């Protein structure tokens, strides 16, 4: 068996051009699926970037709401004040939140607008790449990616609902194509929404050594019509909402790319088997059993597929480095899970790809060895 495996390996390495061409084809299929998943992963991470960075111990919002993405919430401000007075609560920061269409020059973007009580408060941008914090009601801080994508500069106007806002600062890490985050002062936004006396979410920071779960229960018991969730729960809810939106698309893309990869593998193995069918007939004639040849084809298929997969990962790493330069609005996120998760799928594709060549091998006539040429 060792020698027949060596033959399988050497046959692959002898036909470098054909093997490489197959590998690149398969790698391209994997790359398509992986790139799409990595972009989606990056986008999803960015969707939850704001709540991730806020990182309070508890989130307070309207009853029936449990996340931020695509949600609306209104809570009376006196409820926030009541929470702030509870034992074990160190700080409560409320903010108004609106997801809406924002006009940036001639472009309309869907985005999150965060209305702050104070330009430097806890719910505001965590890092500015340029400009300053909010000081006046008609000012806005926008994601810095908009500067490179649309050429937006300080002093330009951005429209939200019925009002224009002047750009005074650019924030870092707040862009995603699904929901870039914009910061304004809350009073003008409240006027646009006719929502005086309400805020959307409250970030609750607790004192050291406070039992967060107990405090969560206490707030929910003492204050009506609100929902209180921990940071971990809030992120999980938001993440689930974000991934649900792309799950079907990713599944379809994965299926298409996997089928493409399986077809390329099948074609590559079949071409190799056809090209080497005289040798395969000789191998059968001198006493090899069908299962031994099937193992060779299967291992060849797995080897080519896994090498192609590694190649795709390398391409993906290069792309993730290049993307911020080529298209800064697209965030590519590479995680160990994203890279390792499709490996079993690659095995399955390799097996499927080797089925047809294996069937052809089993039916190959060993008497072909006597044919000349």
């Amino acid at each position, binding site marked *: *068996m*060792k*020698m*027949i495996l*060596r*033959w399988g390996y*050497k*046959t692959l*390495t*002898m036909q470098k051009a054909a093997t490489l061409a197959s590998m690149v084809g398969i790698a391209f299929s994997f790359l398509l699926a992986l790139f799409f998943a990595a972009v989606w992963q990056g986008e999803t991470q960015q969707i939850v970037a704001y709540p991730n960075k806020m990182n309070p111990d508890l989130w307070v919002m309207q009853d029936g709401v449990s996340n931020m993405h695509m949600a609306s919430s209104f809570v009376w401000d006196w409820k926030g004040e009541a929470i702030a007075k509870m034992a074990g609560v160190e700080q409560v920061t409320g903010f108004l939140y609106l997801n809406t269409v924002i006009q940036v020059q001639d472009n309309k973007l869907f985005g999150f607008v965060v209305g702050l009580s104070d330009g430097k408060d806890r719910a505001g941008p965590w890092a500015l790449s340029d400009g300053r914090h909010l000081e006046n009601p008609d000012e806005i801080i926008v994601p810095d990616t908009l500067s490179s994508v649309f050429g937006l500069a300080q002093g330009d106007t951005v429209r939200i609902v019925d009002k224009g806002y002047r750009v005074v600062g650019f924030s870092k890490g707040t862009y995603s194509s699904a929901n870039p985050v914009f910061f304004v002062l809350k009073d003008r936004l409240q006027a646009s929404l006719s929502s005086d006396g309400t805020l959307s979410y409250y970030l609750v920071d607790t004192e050291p050594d406070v039992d967060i779960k107990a405090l969560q229960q206490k707030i929910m018991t003492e204050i009506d019509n609100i929902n209180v969730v921990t940071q971990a729960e809030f992120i999980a809810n938001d993440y689930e909402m974000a991934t649900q939106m792309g799950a079907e698309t990713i599944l379809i893309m994965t299926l298409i790319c996997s089928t493409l990869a399986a077809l390329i593998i099948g074609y590559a193995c079949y071409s190799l088997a056809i090209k080497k069918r*005289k*040798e395969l007939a*000789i*191998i*059968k*004639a*001198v*006493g*090899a*059993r069908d299962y*031994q040849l099937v193992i060779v084809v299967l291992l060849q298929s797995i080897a080519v597929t896994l090498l192609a997969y590694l190649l795709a990962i390398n391409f993906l790493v290069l792309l993730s480095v290049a993307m911020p330069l080529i298209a800064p609005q697209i965030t590519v996120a590479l995680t160990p899970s994203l890279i390792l998760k499709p490996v079993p799928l690659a095995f399955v594709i390799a097996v499927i790809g080797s089925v047809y060549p294996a069937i052809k091998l089993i039916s190959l*006539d*060993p*008497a072909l*060895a*006597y044919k*000349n*040429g």
Partner: protein
Amino acid sequence: MGEILLIMGPSGSGKTTFLSMLGGLLSADEGEVLIDGVDITQLKPSQLPDIRAKTIGFIFQSFNLLDALTVEENILFPASLLDEKTDSVRQRCGELIRKLGLQDRRKALPQTLSGGEKQRVAIARALINQPKVILADEPTGNLDSQSGQEVMMLLHDVARDQGVAVLIVTHDPRVEDIADRILWLEDGKIIDRKAESHQWIKDPVCGMRVDEWRALHFVDYQKSRYAFCSRRCRERFVENPEKYVE
């Protein structure tokens, strides 16, 4: 001492098909193929690879070495399909390489070998599992006369020294010199004859040279025997013998 048996006949007479059936590569519609007392026509298809690997050595006209493997690996290949101890196989391989004068080509790839060397590797490969019979299809067909002569002498030695039966399909009349028996296959019939010198006579109808011994078409006319290259010539002769007899 093994017998050397030649299978000869015109092109298209079925020599290779016959050899394929003897080697268990094609199934026979009727009859028996006995190898070392085992009728291989009665075996299941799944049993044939084992029989081929253990009892039959194959030699082909176009050498049929595996391009990706070295000389040594090609020789060891059939042995690797069986569960034999590696040491004894390697020792046997070394002996074959020495006997066949391939010591310097042990690590060479087939594409770098001459035709004669390739056929010697093929012979070593056929012998590695110590088969009972070797089936050789035109072993000298792609070789120059000197290499062809060397290969025939090797097959001769294999039969004499190792007691292996050697069946050779060939067109090459020079091979007849080393054969113990010659089978002539034509029109689905096998004629068994001893290796003798040819008796060339002229077909009286078409004038072609015909081996009187091998010819299948005869007519006895006026106390003489006439041989013909084909049935057609024979029929023409029968229609009007005087026309062709001086």
